[in-house]
Every structure is written in C-alpha cells, then in structure tokens.
C-alpha cells in the first residue's frame, strides 16, 4: 500500500485520544515495565511515550499549537519515538497496573500501525523478515507451509476430516516450539476426534505482522481466508496453541472479517479444561513434584475478554500427586518473557535481559519445574534461541537453568 506522510491524528480513535490525555504520570507503570527493569531509561517508558505523542498532536492539531507555533516535529524526534515504540514487548503490564486504566497495549499497536503505514515504516529487520516472509509464504518464517506438520506431528495421531473440535497450531509453535504442538495434539487425540486445517491452508494469524511490524493491511485477506477455512472444517470450538494468535483472533479478526467469528476460539488450555470437565480427558500417571506456572502475557492481559488464568491451573490440579505453587508475580501481573512482538528480532539484548529477570523470579520459588504455554516464552526461556548474535544473548545462553522449564501441554501429554 502507498506510504503516506505522518499525520498524528489520522486513524486514532476517540478512546485513544482521550487516553493520551488521561495519563497522570504517576509513574506506577515504570515499576512493572519489563523494559524499565533492564534499561532503567524513563525516556522510553509508557508515560514518556504518551506525553511525547500528545505533544506532537498538540503542536499540529490544537488551538494552542496554532496560536503559539513551536518548531515542527522533526524526523529525529519521530525516529526516537519509533525506537521507543519498538523497544516495547507489548506485554501490556503497563495497562494492567495503570491507575487510570489506559489500554496501552492497544495504543502501542495503533501507533506501530501508524508508523508502518507512513513513509517512516517499521524497523528494517521486521520489514525484511516476518513481513516479507508473509507476502511470499503466508507465514512469518521463510519456508513454504507444505511440510510444517511433519516437524512435530507424531505418527500415531489421526486427524478427522471434519470435527466440532479444531486445533490451530500457529507458525510459532511449528517452527519455534514444535514441542507445544506435539503435546496439544496428543492431548486432543486422547479426548476424541479433532481436526486441523490442511497445512497449506493454515496461514499465519497475522500477529507478527500486525503487532510486530505494524502492518494491518494484510488482515482483511488473512481473516477472510482463515475464518472460511476453519468454518469449512465444521469447527465450532477452536483451540489455539499460541496465545498471541488467539489475542489477534479475538481482537482484529472479527473486525477485519466484518462480523463475529462462526466458531468459539480459545486457548488450548481452556478447551482442554472443558474436555476435562466433560470427562473426555484424564491424567492417569502421577507426577510427584511441585511446579509453578508462568502466565504468558497474551493469556494474562488479553486485548478483549477475560484473562485466562484458571484453565491451566485446573489442568495441573487434575494431575495426581502434582503440587502447584504460584510465583510472586503471577496472574494478571505476571512477568514478561521479553520475546514477543518483534522484541527478540529488533532488540535481542533487551529481550534476553528481560528473560533473565523472569528466570530470577522463578528461581525464588521452590518449584522444580516452571511451565508455560506460549511459543515465544518457550523460545526465549527453554531453547533461548535468538534471531541475532549478540554478546548479551551469549551471556544469557551460558546461564544454567535454575529449574526445568517446559510447555504445559507437552508436560501434561507425558502424564496421559
């Protein structure tokens, strides 16, 4: 699409304009922001970002700006703002703890979109990576979709042609955390018939492009294709292994599809918990240990709807012998793993440092295993794979794990 000059007001909603004025600079969010934890730079904090953007609008669109014209917003200022915007991992903790309820996660998305649509664009690494890959392969990864299930699909799993229960593994699970997809299909297989899209039909959900790169122009085509594909399979309840896929499915898919989705999308953990209630799933093996659960940001602080906090815990509590304990920061204020929304690609050093903070938090608990349920957490915490070589990442990779870390579904699949 044609790139336009930057108009600060265009495309912002009433709610977002009000939010820019709502910040009291109480500085509460700085105490919770994972980027602040590792950079200690208030200039890239949420209040600083809100204040700066509000200033740009005031300079260009208000009476004050017209009566007392100050210098134009320079390219340097905008470049600094853009850097700050992409130093954020979009974990949404700032909005959760915000004393006046600013929905920052959505606001950062909007501002990223504005940059991507303008001549200033998104960071080059994202433009050339996930975005270019999407245009070529319909995936953020540089590979055709054809063989994707072969990476992780066990030989003994049979997919139904049509079924009420569907499973969407998401690109991140396939290429970055195939262990999660394997665990989920083993569990669904044990609970009854389920189906999945044919690999070529199973496009990306749009999160890496829309959130990471800020490119929303792909969403209408994508949502229409995917919704039709799921509906054609007869799916009524769709489990999504990646919480970020689900987040965008609930937030942007219905908008870009133009109406409510014809199926109920939920996290893998939620659908498995439902199957547990329906008596279709049972864990027979004992697990004599104490585990802790890390709530991934997209489940703890979703764009829309309630946080998914109980379902994973319900599953773990159903395992004989297993003891579950919570970390100090859990639930809606759980820590960020530092991996999401382009952070690993654009600022791998910040990303690795944030992951280390979560490790230190987990280390404080007496649990033997930390479980989580997100491919990005998996990548940043378990395999510690980063997109760019970097001394900070090297250092992070050399740290020995203080405890075992694994994906919830893979852990549970071993207990069937």
């Amino acid at each position, binding site marked *: 699409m044609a790139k336009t000059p930057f108009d600060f007001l265009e495309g912002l909603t009433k709610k977002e304009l009000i939010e820019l004025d709502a910040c009291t600079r109480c500085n509460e969010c700085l105490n919770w922001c994972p980027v602040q934890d590792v950079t200690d730079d208030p200039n890239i904090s949420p209040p600083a970002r809100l204040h700066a953007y509000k200033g740009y609008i005031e300079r260009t669109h208000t009476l004050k700006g017209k009566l007392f014209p100050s210098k134009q917003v320079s390219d340097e200022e905008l470049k600094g703002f853009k850097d700050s915007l992409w130093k954020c991992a979009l974990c949404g903790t700032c909005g959760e703890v915000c004393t006046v309820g600013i929905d920052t996660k959505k606001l950062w998305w909007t501002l990223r979109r504005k940059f991507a649509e303008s001549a200033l664009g998104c960071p080059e690494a994202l433009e050339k990576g996930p975005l270019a890959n999407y245009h070529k392969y319909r995936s953020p990864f*540089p*590979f055709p979709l054809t063989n994707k299930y072969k990476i992780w699909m066990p030989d003994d799993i049979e997919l139904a042609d049509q079924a009420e229960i569907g499973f969407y593994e998401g690109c991140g699970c396939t290429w970055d955390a195939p262990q999660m997809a394997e665990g989920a299909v083993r569990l669904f297989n044990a609970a009854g018939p389920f189906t999945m899209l044919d690999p070529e039909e199973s496009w990306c959900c749009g999160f890496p492009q829309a959130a990471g790169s800020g490119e929303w122009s792909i969403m209408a085509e994508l949502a229409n294709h995917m919704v039709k594909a799921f509906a054609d399979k007869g799916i009524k309840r769709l489990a999504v292994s990646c919480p970020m896929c689900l987040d965008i499915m609930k937030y942007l898919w219905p908008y870009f599809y133009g109406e409510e989705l014809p199926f109920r999308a939920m996290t893998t953990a939620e659908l498995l918990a439902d199957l547990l209630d329906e008596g279709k799933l049972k864990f027979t093996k004992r697990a004599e240990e104490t585990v802790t659960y890390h709530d991934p940001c997209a489940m703890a602080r979703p764009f829309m709807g309630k946080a998914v906090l109980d379902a994973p815990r319900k599953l773990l509590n159903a395992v004989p012998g297993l003891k579950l304990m919570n970390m100090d920061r859990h639930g809606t204020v759980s820590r960020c793993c530092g991996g999401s929304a382009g952070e690993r690609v654009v600022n791998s050093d910040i990303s690795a440092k944030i992951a280390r903070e979560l490790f230190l938090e987990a280390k404080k608990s007496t649990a033997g295993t930390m479980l989580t349920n997100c491919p990005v957490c998996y990548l940043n915490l378990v395999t*510690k794979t980063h*997109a760019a070589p970097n001394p900070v990442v090297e250092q992070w990779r050399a740290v020995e*794990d203080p405890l075992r870390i694994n994906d919830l579904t893979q852990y549970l699949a071993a207990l069937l």
Partner: protein
Amino acid sequence: MLLCKVHLEGFTPEEKEILDTMFFHPYDKLEEYDGKLIMNYGSGELCLGTNDFGEDCKHCRYVPVVVRRILQRQEHFEFGKKQA
C-alpha cells in the same frame, strides 16, 4: 533445557529437507560433517544423553518429533563438537 549436540545419522532426504526448514536461527543452526548432522539446540551445559527429565535421546521431550524419529532409528550416539 541443556545444550543438545547429539549427532544425527541415517536421516532420509525428506527428513533433511524438513530439518533445514527448522534450525535456521544463528543459534540453532545444524552443523554438517561426513554426511551427518550435529544438533545445536538449547543452551548452557552440554547434554550427554539424559535430559533434565531423565529421558534418553530417543524419548527426549525437548527435541522435535522429526528429530526423535531419526534418533529412534539410530544405534550410535555421539555428543559434542565434531572431531577435528
């Protein structure tokens, strides 16, 4: 997870093709030698055949199914860097 540097052998061309689409980040690139491959997955201490859940390579939950399939056919296991 521990750093997996298990040597893979006896894989089919199709499996090799799939493996090539997987380990592409700078930190998990596969190393090739004498028609074999060396895994480079995970971090920290080198794993010598038993993961932190006590599982051997053939049943290791951390390695993707495609790799486990190769390992389940394999009889000899080597770990670490290739010999000079």
